[in-house]
């Protein structure tokens, strides 16, 4: 059985590594719920409020996405979501590191490996897959460029909450209810 991939300590982020940005559900304005849903990614997924601006990413595998890495990171991301006032974690949008380091057009965002150690006082969890890009200038500008880069070239990796998952028992009960209804309908006298 293959082991979960672990990045080399102190090593750079490989150009083929899928680098993901966590997605959290964000509310709409209460007065603007009549708007049509939009197709682009939400600006807020890329907005950083920290100064200096450091946009965090998760390294999701050595070349393609490693499922074990995703399984390891999902509870960390859910805890992060809970810390963000009951927001829900929905997965990642990801790009190859090379696409961020040197995009064909627009601003480049070099990705730096920055694992979070268990001893880090600012972070409760250990995340050896943490990476970031450091940016100067206006936070809105950085977020707008990242939003475009990920919307135009990014891929989605959804991550369902296990609490939302339908169990086998629930599925059996659903099928049972459907069959019961069908039998009652068949048995009912036809007009």
């Amino acid at each position, binding site marked *: 059985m293959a082991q979960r991939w672990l990045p080399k300590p102190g090593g750079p982020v490989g150009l083929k590594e899928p680098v993901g940005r966590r997605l959290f559900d964000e*509310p709409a*304005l*209460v*007065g*603007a719920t009549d708007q049509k849903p939009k197709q*682009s990614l939400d*600006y807020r997924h890329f*907005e950083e409020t920290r100064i200096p601006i450091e946009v965090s990413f998760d390294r999701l595998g050595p070349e393609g996405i490693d499922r074990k890495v995703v399984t390891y990171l999902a509870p960390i991301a859910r805890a992060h979501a809970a810390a963000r006032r009951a927001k829900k974690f929905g997965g990642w949008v990801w790009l190859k590191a090379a696409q961020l380091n040197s995009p064909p057009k627009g601003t480049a965002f070099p990705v730096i490996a920055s694992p979070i150690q268990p001893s880090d006082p600012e972070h409760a969890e250990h995340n050896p897959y943490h990476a970031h890009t450091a940016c100067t200038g206006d936070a809105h500008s950085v977020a*707008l460029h990242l939003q475009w880069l990920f919307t135009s070239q990014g891929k989605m990796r959804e991550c369902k909450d296990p609490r939302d998952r339908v169990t086998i028992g629930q599925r059996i009960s659903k099928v049972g209810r459907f069959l019961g209804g069908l039998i009652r309908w068949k048995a009912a006298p036809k007009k």
Partner: protein
Amino acid sequence: MICPTAEAILSSHIVQEVRLPTPFGRAATGIDVPTDAPLPAQVARVPTAEVVGPSVSPAGWLQIVERRISNSLQPAGRDYENQGQWLSAETASAATAFFQLTSDVLPGEPHIYSSLVGDLVAEFKAPHGVLNAVISTKAFTALAIIDGSPEETRIEWNAVSSRSVRSTLRSLTAKLCDGEHGSAVAT
């Protein structure tokens, strides 16, 4: 789909206010105006009517967006509950003023929502790309993607005139509607 340039959008919205001459030399508004009073420079005299203008009418979607903004105002004393579903009075006021000033030179109706720091995000779609913008009480920051090429614009409210804001956005909208090299000439 034919998309007019911003200039065309602007001129299509120009309203000519026509005052019909009255028998007693009075303006149709009912205000007594001496017939020999000098006309303002922008008022043109035509044989059958006095044309005042041009004045620009706002985009059709402006009222809808204004309503969405005013309906999203944060109730007093509930700051701690705001997760992005409400706008502060300052942001709402800045965004409303911005749309009132520029609605006719923007690509179309925006999709709006609040940023994490409470500014207003407005996203526009056009035939040749998108315009994503953040409107705060201090500045307007936008990234236009015109045929796949990004073009950033930043306007500080205290550093520019309203004419300059409109002119910048009109030029951006023209590129978004017609492409970087303008509309193709029909043959």
